[in-house]
């Protein structure tokens, strides 16, 4: 064992800071009952400390805690992503009126945000099936609780219940799949499993092979549930609609990113041949996993986009749109070359700005007019010019039109796919983008071209903090649409992963 526990802990400081944040927040909650916002401040401070510790933790690639966690630029990227999203969500939560109704319990809400963020940083680095499972459970259980946090609201409780049921089934399936893989390989370590497979053991033929297939498909079901890929997406609309909107945003952005981190690591480390030079990493173990993922990707984006067309509740529409985005992102995993994975990372950065921005506006509007219905957005562009323009930009960015960040994300992702043998996949994705334009534009039409139903055209005044936040989200959406060189460089440097033989 080259690394010791103490050296592992030294390389684990950001995660440790998050775990301690959770504990500190809990103690704070006991010590100062009813002062929930103070707990929120503790969590915020803890996240800031974790973020500050990130540059001091080495980017490896190396394995810590006996191979449980991989330290590599890939996990570092996702840790930054998750922690920054956590900070943004805590700041959103301070502003949310929806949560104010449950103000006496808000302290616990922040505790769970800390636990959820901790779990997601573990997912980013987990390199052992056991660790992957525990990290996913930690994230899952924290999110069930948070989805049902506003329990005086009926649909929030309903969301939590559905989430628990789907979550329990999918994690049961995943665990069964992991047990099959363990039974065949005698190891839970991804790298060691790769080595067994690469030796071309008896495992790659006959019934053993079928067993492995079923195991991987079951694990894929668990991971697909986390990233809300079709056909494991049924929970998404109800949970996204029912959960407090801050949590919806958190799940749609950070939880999805953590799920992708695990998915990419799982397939890349276990099944893809590192030494192919083509623009696509082929899987070597007899199954064309690229094709399986491609089918999943097409189903996900198509179902997401087509059902989004019928949605009148904006939270629900954004839920389906996030399913569709998971489909686009899966294309990068299909290709799985360095450029494909870099494109996924870049897309996530853009997705962060556009999606959080959109959710923020929906939250601010719901706090103001008490509705998320598309008809209540009629004339919104005139009634609240700044926030309206912001929302329009976020929606255009989600569609992927220039000159926004969303366009750059899609451009680079699609071009990675075009360079691979999966050209047809890029064609399907472009057609899907056209469909998505319809439902995003529907909101825009209501905002700018239609009069309000009740004829009320009095301006909606938002607090300055809200306007400033919206502007802060507009800037990166436009800026990264025009100047994205550093982001591309950063993502390309972040694809290095702890691989077998390294």
């Amino acid at each position, binding site marked *: 064992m080259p690394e010791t526990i103490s050296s592992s802990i030294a390389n684990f400081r950001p995660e440790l800071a998050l*775990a301690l944040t959770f504990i500190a927040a809990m103690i704070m909650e006991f010590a100062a009952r009813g002062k929930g916002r103070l707990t929120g401040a503790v969590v915020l401070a803890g996240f800031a400390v974790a973020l500050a510790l990130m540059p001091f933790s080495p980017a490896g690639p190396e394995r810590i805690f006996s191979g449980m966690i991989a330290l590599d630029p890939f996990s570092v990227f996702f840790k930054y992503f998750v922690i920054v999203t956590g900070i943004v969500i805590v700041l959103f939560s301070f502003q949310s009126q929806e949560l104010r109704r449950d103000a*006496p319990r808000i302290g616990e809400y922040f505790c*769970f945000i800390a636990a959820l963020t901790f779990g997601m940083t573990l997912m980013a680095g987990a390199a052992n099936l056991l660790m992957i499972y525990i990290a996913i*459970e930690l994230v899952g259980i924290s999110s069930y609780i948070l989805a049902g946090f506003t*329990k*005086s609201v*009926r649909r929030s409780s309903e969301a939590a219940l559905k989430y628990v049921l789907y979550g329990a089934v999918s994690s049961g399936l995943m665990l069964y799949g992991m047990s099959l893989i363990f039974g065949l*390989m005698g190891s839970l370590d991804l790298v060691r499993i790769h080595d067994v497979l690469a030796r071309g053991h008896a*495992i790659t033929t006959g019934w053993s092979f*079928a067993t492995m297939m079923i195991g991987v498909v079951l694990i894929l079901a668990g991971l697909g549930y986390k990233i809300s890929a079709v056909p494991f997406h049924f929970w998404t609309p109800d949970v996204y609609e029912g959960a407090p909107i801050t949590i919806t945003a958190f799940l749609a952005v950070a939880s999805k990113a953590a799920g992708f981190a695990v998915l990419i690591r799982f397939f890349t480390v276990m099944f893809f041949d590192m030494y192919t030079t083509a623009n696509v990493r082929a899987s070597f173990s007899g199954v064309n996993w690229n094709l399986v993922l491609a089918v999943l990707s097409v189903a996900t984006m198509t179902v997401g986009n087509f059902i989004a067309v019928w949605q009148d509740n904006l939270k629900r529409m954004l839920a389906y749109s996030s399913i569709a985005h998971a489909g686009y992102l899966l294309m990068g995993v299909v290709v799985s070359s360095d450029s494909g994975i870099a494109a996924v990372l870049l897309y996530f950065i853009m997705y962060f700005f556009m999606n959080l921005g959109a959710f923020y506006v929906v939250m601010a509007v719901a706090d103001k007019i008490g509705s998320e219905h598309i008809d209540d957005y009629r004339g919104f562009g005139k009634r609240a010019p700044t926030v309206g323009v912001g929302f329009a930009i976020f929606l255009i960015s989600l569609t992927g039109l220039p000159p926004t960040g969303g366009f750059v994300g899609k451009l680079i992702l699609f071009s990675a796919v075009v360079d691979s043998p999966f050209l047809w996949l890029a064609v399907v994705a472009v057609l899907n983008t056209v469909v998505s334009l319809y439902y995003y534009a529907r909101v825009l039409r209501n905002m700018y071209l239609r009069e309000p139903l009740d004829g009320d055209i009095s301006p909606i005044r938002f607090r300055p903090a809200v306007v400033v936040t919206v502007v802060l989200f507009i800037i990166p959406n436009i800026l990264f649409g025009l100047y994205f060189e550093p982001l591309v460089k950063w993502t390309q440097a972040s694809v290095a992963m702890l691989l077998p033989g390294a």
Partner: protein
Amino acid sequence: MSYPDVLFYVFAALAAVSALVVVFARNVVYAAFSLLFTFLGVAGIYVLLHADFLAVAQIMIYIGGILVLLIFGVMLTTRVTNVDLPGGVLKTMPATIVSGILLGTLLRLVTRASWFVEPELPSPEGTTAAIGDRLVTTHLLPFEVAGILLLVTIMGAALIARTNGRRRDA
């Protein structure tokens, strides 16, 4: 058949038959009690597999803790004891076909696949010491994270179950 083989079939039959009762019993109390024998049968199989620590943990946690709580829960909830559970009203035919195919496939997998075989069996002295050793060395991190996971779960259960003092329905 050797002596352990006979024992294996006894325990396996115990677990399987009582599991069927759990599923098919119309009375929740019968189902809960039957679960006791399922857990016991599984614990017996663990013993035969040299997993002594797991067997004891199974008995202490599942039978001693969870099951007793479950039965108490069932008994204290008076309404539940005599309720007939709905069964057989769902689409029986498709479910049977799907389950049959699944069972057939899994049985074939279990019997045909070349499973990984641990070169040496754990020593008959017991596995507890080895497990304890692993928990603070190679498996330290999952062990600690599981602790946090349980803490989160307890807090969450309390949060969900607690009434707020003042309730509002939206």
